[in-house]
């Protein structure tokens, strides 16, 4: 298994002990109750539609995944070899829990699903993502999103 605690110390330390930037505290924004929120999923799994351009290392870009996409047709061009892909191979919801979100909406536990979800490729330096993230804020607001869940790999 690719559980961190089961990895040999050397490879584990390469992942855990990365030099990461520290951020000042970001004040949590308030919003409506969950049953009234509109939720978008943002994954850093490097997922995209088969027809979209692959992710490239070092480029802080994102791909749009419309909510009516056939999620079974998503492919992964993430560059890293150091995470389990067999879960995604069997069930895209392991990484992009789209079907689960739809179910929660149908149950009334979540208000709405956003019209669009988004994918980045992890392993991109965090500060390099700021321009794309700022652009995404506008896109999310245009879609009236009131909550974002981030799904890493």
């Amino acid at each position, binding site marked *: 298994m690719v559980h961190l605690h089961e990895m040999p110390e050397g490879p584990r330390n*390469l992942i855990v002990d990365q030099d990461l930037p520290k951020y000042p505290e970001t004040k949590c924004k308030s919003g409506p109750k969950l049953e009234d929120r509109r939720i978008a999923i943002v994954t850093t799994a490097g997922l995209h539609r088969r027809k979209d351009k692959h992710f490239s290392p070092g480029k802080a870009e994102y791909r749009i995944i419309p909510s009516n996409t056939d999620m079974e047709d998503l492919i992964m061009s993430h560059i890293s070899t150091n995470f389990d892909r067999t879960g*995604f191979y069997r069930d895209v919801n392991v*990484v992009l829990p789209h079907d689960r979100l739809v179910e929660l909406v149908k149950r009334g536990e979540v208000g709405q699903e956003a019209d669009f979800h988004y994918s980045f490729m992890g392993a991109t330096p965090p500060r390099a993502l700021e321009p794309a993230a700022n652009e995404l804020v506008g896109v999310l607001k245009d879609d009236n999103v009131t909550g974002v869940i981030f799904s890493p790999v």
Partner: protein
Amino acid sequence: MCGLAHYIEDGGIPTVIISLVKKHTEVMKPPRALHVPFELGRPFGGANKPEFQRKVLLTALKLLERTDGPILENFNENVPISPDEIDAQEGWSCPVNLPNPVSTDNFTSGIMNEISLLQPWYDHSLKEMKGRKLDGLTSLNKDQIVKFLVDWTNDQNIKSRIEGESIIRALKLAADDLRHFYYQAAMGKPGIRSDLEMGDWFYGQTTAGLLFIEIRKIMMESDDEITRMAGRTNYVPNAMLKHIENK
């Protein structure tokens, strides 16, 4: 991931992240996070476990209602394993009896032979997965992919064979397509649990795995830093480096 959460929240939209590496979350302190005890690559637990995935998702989403950040909560349940899965986990083996990996001077015939032996399992897996294909990052067919990768091991000055992609990125995309074919074929036989088992088979028992190790070795000896970095990170997972030592 944590950085993105800071930027998006700062822009006015509440966020919550699934945390797989707790130390990263503790350092970067996103507004809200739910740490889960799952494998890297499986932020919502296990495949085809809708009830459990839904529980993880709902637990995380409920954190959106809190504003007392930075919040780092723990999800302490492990992925449930059914009796059928326990039975299937016993003694997974390769779906076909592949010959021992050939030497590095005869990659092409060795890999093409493996592909032909694996093709029926790939087709079966494709049917089981209702046509969902894991490969397809490139438009190259298997012959072209193998030729491209092997040609590069013989001459590092060849051109990219994927339009618009550098040679380093093209090699990676082609290699991933080849690996996805092997993995999808292997998944035709039930019971395999993880990348680790799949990796032990691919890197330890197949000629394609041997080719990946060879590509890594050549790249690591390059004078070019980007090529060396690609070699170090793109072909052999850290957990599979043991197979290099065994070669």
